[in-house]
């Protein structure tokens, strides 16, 4: 099942990439989220997958009775999810403000910082 999940990671990444190339800021954000999910799943799969046994030590025991799911990737993903969510929120509000100020959702038309018809540099000394 590792390999199925690995293939699923590829689907996530593909869609994320495709959406990131869409020029529409909101879609790009969605792409970023999908890509992030794909990466999280990748970390999860990287730690090898085990069915249904949560890494929680049953009450009264010192160590789990049997094998458990790998807890470390889970902790890493948790951190990554939280960070990803923070970044996502910021970029979303940024997109919102950019839309309000620049009247554009299409990145092709966001050209204030790098103007389309930038002047030729002066040929002088």
């Amino acid at each position, binding site marked *: 099942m590792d390999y199925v999940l690995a293939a699923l990671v590829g689907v996530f990444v593909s869609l994320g990439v495709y959406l990131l190339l869409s020029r529409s800021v909101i879609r790009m954000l969605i792409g970023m989220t999908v890509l992030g999910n794909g990466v999280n799943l990748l970390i999860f799969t990287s730690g090898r997958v085990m069915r*249904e*046994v*949560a890494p*929680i030590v049953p009450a009264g025991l010192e160590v789990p009775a049997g094998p458990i799911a790998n807890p470390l990737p889970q902790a890493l993903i948790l951190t990554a999810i939280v960070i990803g969510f923070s970044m996502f929120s910021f970029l979303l509000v940024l997109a919102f403000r950019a839309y309000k100020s620049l009247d554009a959702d299409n990145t092709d038309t966001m050209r204030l910082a790098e103007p389309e018809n930038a002047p030729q540099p002066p040929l002088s000394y």
Partner: protein
Amino acid sequence: MSVVAFVDLCSLVALIILGLALLLSIVRIIIGPTLSDRVLALDMMTVVAMGFIGAVAIRTGLMLYLDIAIALALLGFLATVALARYILRRGLKVDASAMEAQ
């Protein structure tokens, strides 16, 4: 058949049924036709997912998953409220063409 095995079987069957319900509920999200229909379906999906989690809890014997289900109910509500508000303010015009078709 022992009781435990019965419960186990029940949970397996329930999971399969709920899995099916999950897939069905996203059909409406995809086909719409209006935003409201999709929101409704999303709300529906949240509830199904909640049930799914409950079933998983029974299947694994980890009743703690229950809290995830409860929290999902809480947040699913929030999502629906937010979307309803969107519809109230922005209308359904994202699907103007679909409305005409209807």
